Each structure stands twice: as C-alpha cells, then as structure tokens.
C-alpha cells in the first residue's frame, strides 16, 4: 500500500520533471500526453486505494522517510490514508485529469505548452501531498507548493505585467495566511510536542473545550485557511487570479487549491470542535463572505470574474458548514462544487476560446446558436450551482441549509438569501452570454467555432457529474442511503462526539418544506433574471446611466482593493523610502561616518602636540610629574 501511495505522488512529480527538464527536447504534443497520462495513472491508483482501504477502520499511516529529526522534534515524511483523504484524492486526480485533457485542446497553440503542463503536474503533486500528509509540516509543504504553482500559473503569460501583478498578489496574500498557519504549527508543537495529526488529535481530546490555547491554535490555522480559500479579509487575490489560463482557473482556483482551507479545517475538526469561539468566527466569516461575494458578482461583467466571486461565495458556504459542525456537508459541497464549478470554468474557457479571448459578457449574447454543446453543458452547470433538484448542487446546498436551520432561523434566512443571489447572478450571466442576439462585431461572429472534442468531452463528463453527483449523499427523506455521509462519518466521529451542542437537525418534513421554499424562491429569481436579461437585455455598467452611490459601491467591489492599497501597500512603500532615505542614509550611516570623522578631527588636534621641540616635551613631562605628585598628596 505504501508503494501505491508513493506512486500516486510520484507520477505527477515525474511528469513535472519530464516536461520541465526536457522543455526543449520533448515536442509539446508528447508533453501534453505525458502530463495527462501521469494524472490518469494517479487517478486509477487513487480509485484502487479507495476501494482497497474501504473496509479498514481508522486512518493508516505509511512511512516514507524522515524529513527533519532533532532530539526533540521529529517530522516524518509520512502519508495518511482515510476516507477524507480518499475523497480528496479522487477529486484532485479525477477533475485534474479531466482538466488536463481539456488543456490539450485549450493550450494547443500556446508556445509555452511544456511549461504549462510542467506547472500543472507540479500543482497536482503539491495538492496530493497536501491531502495525503500525516502531519502539519508535510501538509505545509503541499500548502506552500500549491501557492507557488498558483503563482506560476496565474502569471503564466508573463509578458503582461497586469498578470504578473495578479500572480504576485496571490502569492503574497497566501503568504499572509501561511504565516498564521506557521504560527499555528508552532503553537501545536509547543502544546503537544508533535505535529502528527493522530498524536495531536489524541492528546487534544484531554484538553478542556474552549481553552485559550486551542482557540489561539485554531484561529491561527484559520488565518491560513482564509488566505488559501479566499475568504474575507484575504479574498481579493482570487478575482485577480483569473488572469491565468482558464484551465488553471478551473483546476486551481475553483476545484482544488482553494478548497485546501476547507480540507484543513475538516482534517483538524477535533481541534475546532473544542474551540467553539473559533467555530462561531468561521460561521460568520463564511456567511459574510458568501453574501458579500454574491452581491459583488451581480454587477461584474467579466465572465471569469463572475465565476471567481461565485467560487468565493460557495467557499463561504463550505466554511459556514464547517463552523456549524456539518463537516460532511462541507465536504459534500466541496465535491459537487468541484464538478460544477470546474464545468462552468471550462465552459467559460470554451466561450473565451471561441471569441478569441473576449471575456466581457456585454459583448457576448446569443451564443446558444453558435456553441450548442457549450450551451448545454453550461446550462447544466448553472442549474446545478443554483441548487435546483435533482442536480448535484441542490443536495449539497440543502445539507448546509438544514444545518444552518438547525442552528438558528436567522442564519438559515441569510443562507437562503445567498442561494437567491447565486441563482440570480448565474442566470444573469447565462442569459447574457447565450440568449438574445450577439452583441460583438460581425467580424467576430463569423469566426465563432465550437470547441474541439478534446475540450467538449471533459465538459460532458463534468456535466454528467454535476447532474448526478448528488446521488452520493441523498437526504434522508428520499429514503435512499447516503453513501458519502456513512463513508466519511468515521473520520468525524470523534469530533461529533466532542461537539457540545450537536447540530439539531430538522425532521424530515421540515427539511422537505424548507427545501421546497428555497426552490420556489430560486425559481422566482430565475424568472426575474430571465425577464431582465433573457430577451430585452439590460446591460449594467452603461456609463450613460447615472449610478447611485450604492450601485457604484457594488460595481466597484466595495473599493476593498483600493482600501488595502491605501492601508497596507502605500504605507509599506512609503516606509521603505523613509527607512532608506532618512533612517539609513541620513541617520545611521551619518552617525557611523561621524564617529570616523571624529577620530580624524581628534587626530588633527592632537597632531599639534607633536611639535618636535625637545624643550616642549620636557616641559610637558615635568608638568605630568608635578600632576602625579599633587595627585598622590591629595590621596594622602
């Protein structure tokens, strides 16, 4: 088993080395096949692992080698397998493979193909390491590794400095979170004397719930999660990250990397349930992010930016679920979200590809005729994310909503508002892109071609998964057993037992009613959206229309980027100049030079004493002797 797990990791790594090192020797076409092939093998091995470990109880540790070992601290390069890992493995390699295949078509004409596939494979490797780690330190390797790959891929087209800035921003914001993660690790080490998951979780059970140290640890780790999963306040990098090629957005900034924070909290569930205050924080961060990003998404006009805000918003849902203790619900939504959001991004990529790089939905419209396959798959994705049964998104969202209801009615109401927002902005986008008439130039219209099979095929698979993914975990009222819950439950059993107020879940009838209510609202919203954007399309952002203050606020994303610029970036730059020009050159260095000059001046003065007249020297000598005599007399 150890060998197979190592292979799952090694194949993408080998793919990276091959396509990376041989970047001039191997033709791009072959690199693409190698890169996709390695992920496929990893996927097959992951399936094998999942089946093989299904009947095992408890997590399995597989030792590879010792990484850091000093007297008091031993960090082993060990891999951990349990259902939670397996689910993540399947998502990463499965969706990863699909997106790699898509990339073959998407990146066909790009000169940097080899580099692209090398980075993609490195990303998959890092992400796999992140979810297979058996301690926080190894997890941190993957954690920073995916950040690096994200940086490299966002700035993939590095000729454009806007893209590079976006990449840099992503890396730095992630690093802010990583500092939290790092300090959290240090706290864990000084508290438990180890960084191994199993050891820590075992010892943590003996710590009284709500103790300060656990709250500190969980909050610091949460900072890491917030950075990686683009939650408030560290979310602003994700919309900018859309600068990267679209397959990158689909894989890294929708399906996998951004869910690392969710995975990490789920993995550390025991620590979190023992820190109820942190759980409250997570609920609010999640809910607030979900609503905030939903509102912003309504007025965006860039197809990828809308999807980016949508991702932030959906991640907010997952965090809310985590905060409510609905870990399985969070993982379920993570899974279905990976399907439909990857699908939507690939669809968006197909549109962008067909329109030769156009991303503004105001210049699209009527594409249903030209891109029928893209339209159908995109429609499925949209329905799924909007939460209409029997599509996958409905079931996963429903699970989170009922957990919210179990906590409080107000929480549920806000969560429903979020769902409403989601369906509104998604259908707005769908209608603006695919229905009505084409609003671009005629020249462009003539060039529109449906994407190649390599791109359509992955979308069809994802469309199927977005449709049927809900079967994994059907709610109780359907009467069918919920596979995902029963599969994941052993992982969270301890946390559930430790949870002080286990979520009071609504009974089946209430749940059905709630779902019915949500659905009705969603349908109404879709109708409203259709009436606004279906035929007579109202385009927001027209400069002629005088905009109200609130609308300007929303259109400009609440000026958060500008706020950070004024509060953090500018002062740092200013400080840098002040430190260098004033403190460094004019103060510290001047003092140092001053000391040197002082020595020269003193020397210049003392120089005059050396007159060369023996008489003068004798005179001074006599003075000295008299001085000593007087001194001695005084002492007596």
């Amino acid at each position, binding site marked *: 088993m150890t060998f197979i797990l190592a292979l799952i990791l090694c194949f993408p790594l080998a793919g990276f080395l091959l396509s990376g090192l041989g970047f001039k020797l191997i033709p791009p076409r072959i690199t693409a096949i190698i890169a996709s092939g390695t992920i496929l093998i990893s996927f097959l091995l992951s399936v094998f692992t999942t089946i093989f470990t299904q009947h095992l109880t408890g997590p399995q540790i597989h030792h590879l080698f010792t*990484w850091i070992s000093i007297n008091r601290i031993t960090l082993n390069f060990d891999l951990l397998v349990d259902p939670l890992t397996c689910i993540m493995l399947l998502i990463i390699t499965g969706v990863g493979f699909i997106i790699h295949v898509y990339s073959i078509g998407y990146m066909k004409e790009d000169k940097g193909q080899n580099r692209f596939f090398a980075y993609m494979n490195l990303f998959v490797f890092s992400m796999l390491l992140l979810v297979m780690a058996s301690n926080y330190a190894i997890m941190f390797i993957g954690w920073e590794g995916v950040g690096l790959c994200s940086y490299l891929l966002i700035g993939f087209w590095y000729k*454009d400095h806007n893209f590079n800035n976006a990449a840099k921003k992503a890396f*730095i914001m992630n690093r802010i979170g990583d*500092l939290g993660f*790092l300090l959290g690790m240090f706290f864990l080490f000084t508290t438990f004397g180890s960084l191994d998951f199993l050891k820590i979780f075992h010892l943590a059970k003996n710590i009284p719930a709500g103790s300060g140290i656990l709250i500190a640890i969980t909050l610091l780790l949460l900072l890491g999660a917030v950075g990686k999963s683009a939650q408030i306040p560290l979310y602003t990098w994700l919309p900018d990250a859309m600068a990267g090629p679209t397959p990158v957005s689909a894989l890294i900034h929708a399906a996998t990397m951004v869910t690392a924070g969710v995975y990490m909290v789920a993995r550390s569930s025991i620590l979190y349930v023992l820190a109820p205050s942190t759980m409250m924080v997570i609920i609010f961060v999640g809910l607030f992010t979900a609503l905030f990003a939903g509102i912003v998404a309504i007025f965006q006009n860039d197809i990828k930016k809308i999807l980016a805000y949508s991702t932030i918003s959906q991640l907010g849902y997952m965090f809310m679920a985590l905060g409510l203790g609905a870990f399985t619900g969070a993982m379920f939504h993570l899974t279905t979200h990976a399907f439909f959001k990857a699908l939507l991004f690939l669809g968006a990529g197909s549109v962008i590809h067909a329109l030769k790089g156009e991303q503004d939905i105001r210049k699209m419209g009527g594409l249903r005729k030209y891109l029928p396959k893209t339209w159908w798959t995109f429609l499925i994705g949209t329905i799924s994310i909007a939460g209409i049964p029997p599509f996958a998104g409905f079931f996963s969202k429903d699970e989170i909503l009922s957990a919210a209801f179990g906590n409080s009615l107000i929480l549920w109401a806000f969560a429903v508002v979020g769902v409403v927002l989601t369906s509104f902005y998604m259908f707005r986008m769908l209608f603006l892109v695919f229905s009505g008439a084409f609003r671009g130039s005629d020249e462009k219209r003539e060039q529109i071609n449906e994407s190649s099979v390599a791109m359509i095929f992955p979308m069809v698979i994802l469309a199927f998964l977005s449709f049927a993914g809900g079967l994994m975990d059907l709610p109780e009222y359907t009467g069918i057993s919920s596979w995902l819950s029963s599969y994941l439950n052993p992982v969270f059993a301890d946390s559930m037992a430790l949870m002080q107020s286990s979520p009071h879940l609504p009974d089946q009838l209430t749940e059905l009613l709630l779902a019915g209510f949500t659905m009705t609202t969603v349908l109404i919203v879709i109708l409203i959206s259709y009436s606004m954007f279906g035929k007579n399309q109202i385009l927001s952002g027209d400069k002629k229309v005088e905009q109200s203050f609130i609308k300007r606020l929303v259109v400009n994303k609440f000026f958060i980027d500008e706020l950070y610029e004024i509060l953090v970036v500018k002062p*740092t730059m200013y400080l840098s100049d002040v430190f*260098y020009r004033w403190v460094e050159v004019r103060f510290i260095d001047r003092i140092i030079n001053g000391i040197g000059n002082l020595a020269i001046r003193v020397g210049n003065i003392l120089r005059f004493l050396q007159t060369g007249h023996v008489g003068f020297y004798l005179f001074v000598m006599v003075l000295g002797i008299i001085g000593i005599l007087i001194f001695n007399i005084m002492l007596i």
Partner: protein
Amino acid sequence: MITGLLIIFPLICALILFLLNTEKWIKIIAVAGSVTQFLISAYGLFLFTTKCNCQLLLYLGSAENLGISLRFGLDGISLLLVLLTTFLIPLIILTTIQHRYRNPSALYGLIMLMEMAFIGVFSAYDGMLFYIFWELALIPAYFICAIWGGNDRIRITLKFFIYTFTGSLFMLVGLIYLFFRTPLPHSFDLHSLTSAILSSKEQAWIFLAFFLAFAIKIPIFPLHTWQPDTYTVAPSGGTMILAGIMLKMGIYGLLRFLLPICPIVMQNWGFIIIILAVVGIIYASIIAIRQKDLKRLVAYSSIAHVGLISAGVFTMTEIGLNGVVIQMISHGINIVGLFMIIDRIEIRLKTTEISRLGGIALKAPFLAVFFMIFLLGSIALPMTNGFIGEFLILLGIFEYNHWIAAVTGITIILSAVYMLRMYQQTMFGEPVELTSNMKDLTWLEALPMIPLVIMVFWIGIFPGFYLHLAEPAIKEMLYFVHG
C-alpha cells in the same frame, strides 16, 4: 593532519598563483587547487564520526611564554562551515574566471589566501589563533574590493576595512583581558578561555567587546551600513565570498566564543539582542522592497536573513541552534546563487539597475529558472534549504517568546514581496531594448550553479545528514549554558 593540510594547501596554491603570469595557467591552477581543496575536506568528512565531538585535531606545539597554542580541530559545526567554504570557493572561482580581470595572479592568489584564513578561523582552537586568522581574512578582502571593485571603491572599501577592523580591535582587547582571567598557566587555548572565572560584570564587558566585532561582521542592525555599499562595489567574486562565507565568521564567533565564555550575559541580554536582530530583519526587508539596484536589494535581503540567524543564536534552544547551523549553510548557498545570477546579468548588460531590465525570462529561460530556484530557497519555500533553517529558527524563537516569533514571521511575507517584485521586474514582461539581444547561460556558466541547485534541494528534502553532523557540537554548546 587533514586540518593542517586544509590550511597549508590553499597557502601553497596562493604562493604558486602569485608567481604565475599566464592567465590561462592561473585560472587552471586556481580551479584545480580549489577543487582539490574541496576533495581534501570531503575526505575529512569521511574521517569524521558523530560519536565524539571535536575531531581531526592538530597540535603543533605552543609558545609557552605567549600562551598561544597552535591547536586546530573540527567539530560538527566547524566542519560544516569548512565544507561550505571549500564547496563555495571553487564555484566562485569558476564564475570569476569568466571575467577578464587585470592582474589575475594577484586576484586568485588573494582568494586562495582568504580561503586559508577562513579555514583557520573555523578550525582554530585557540583564541589568539582565531584572532590572527580573523584579521588575516580581512586583508585579502580589502585588496580584492579595493583593486577590482567598481565606482567609488576606495572610499567604500576603506570604510569597510576601518569599520570591521575597529570591531576586531575590541575583540583583541577582550581576548587579552580574558587571557589574564584564565586559570594558571594563562593561555589563549579555547579550553582555558571557556574555563576562565569571570564575575557577571566582567562577563558583560567581555561580551560587549566580542559582540561588537561579531555584530559588525555579521552585520547586525544598526551596525550594518558598511555592507550594502561594499556588496555593491566589490567585484562579483568578492561579493560572493563576503556574503557567502565571510559573514559566517561572525556567527561562528558567537557560537564558538560568546556562548561558552559568557553564557550568563548571553541569557540576560539575549532578549535585547534578539529584539535588535528582529528590528533589523523587518527594517532591512522593508528597505529591500524599494531598492533600485539588484545587488543592493540582495544585500539588504541578506541583512534580513543573517538577522534571523543571529536571533536564532540568542534563543539558545536546541531547535534554534540547529536552525542556525542549517541556515548558515543555506544562506551561503542561496546568496552566492543569487549573486551569480546578478553577475551573469551584469556581464551581459553592464548594469544591475532593476528599472532598466525586463523580459529576461523570454530571452534567457535557463537563467530565469536558476534565478527562480535560488529565489525560492531564499524565500524559504518548503522543500528548499531556506525553509528548514527558517522553520527551525522561528520555532526556536517561538519557544523563546511567542510575540517575537509572530513579529519575526512577518519576514516570510516581506521576503516574498521584495523577491517577487525583483523577479517580476527583471525576468517578466516584454523584453526591453537592453535585454532584447540577451543570450542564455552557456554550459560553462551554468556549471557552477548546478551544484548549488542540488544543495538547495538536498538540504531542503534530506536535511538529516547536516542536522546529524552538527548535533553533538550543539549539545556541547548548550551544555555551557544550561549545564
């Protein structure tokens, strides 16, 4: 024996080099000599076991009346630093031979002389011997910078010389005072220096005298102002030696002398020094963000990095010290790598001004890849050498004081800011006029970088070998502190 050979051999090479006058032969001898020196030290590693502490001893007798004994030896830490020296010098020479410097025989002779002095510093088991080699290292450094340096070299080099020399004089005074406090018969032998009986007040003065010398060399904020100027003006090979090896003398001094001689003061004043170091880390990192010159930027980043190492020393925890040892090696490798890249840029474009560069990745992808690897090492990405050191040092600081660790941690954010900014502005974007005809690295140019890259990952992924080597030495040092 090996230790003696390691000191004598570079001296012989230096003498031969001084006598030669065909450039080709000078270069061949310099490369061959430094590589041989590395092999000798590798053989030393082969002989070394981690079972007992100080090994490969060499005792050449002593001058009884002066109290100086010619005693050399290596423990885990000094062996690692010797290896770092002998590993880096051939690579630096390989980079340097691609320049056409006037009077090469003197240049390479001086480099070999410096190597001898470094080995002497790292292996001396006698205070006076240490001091002599310490000063001996400074003289070739001065000449290298003053003769082959860039604009304004005389003024800057003189400042560098006087500054560091003044510091060393304080150390000499401290050393002599210490001599008279050693048990009879007075001796400069390391063993008797560490068993000197000192009141806490005396310890404090001794500490100050030594610390001044070490802190200037390292350099610790606010004694660092000689460093960016010197790194910028020195010839690239000289900069690499200064940044990669020479400043390690200061840190080594802290470990070898201050820790055993004034443990009480180290503990009492450690807090202040750590604060100073941390202020320096943040201060230098922030300054680095807006630097306009590649060399100066890397120089400030180096101040931040060595600040972290110094802070690690003063935590005096086992984890912290392990981090210090690893980070000394890693810093040497990464900074030399970065300066090699800068040197390659300078040799092609005759400038290191960031705003005049851009789009190099498109023209010279190999160069960009090497640059990226050294950059990742120095921003401490996990699986690179920088991470192991920074992780352990930060953990050590965290054990010492949570809040200081939190503030120090900001360096991982700031380092990403200034390094990525530098990388973006030089490597990315459309090629500018200056870089439009830039050539990629040749194999000969890549040759010295490849071993560095291997080390970046070796230490990053399998640091066990290095940690294991230094373990007994660190234990012994901590024994002086905690008993």
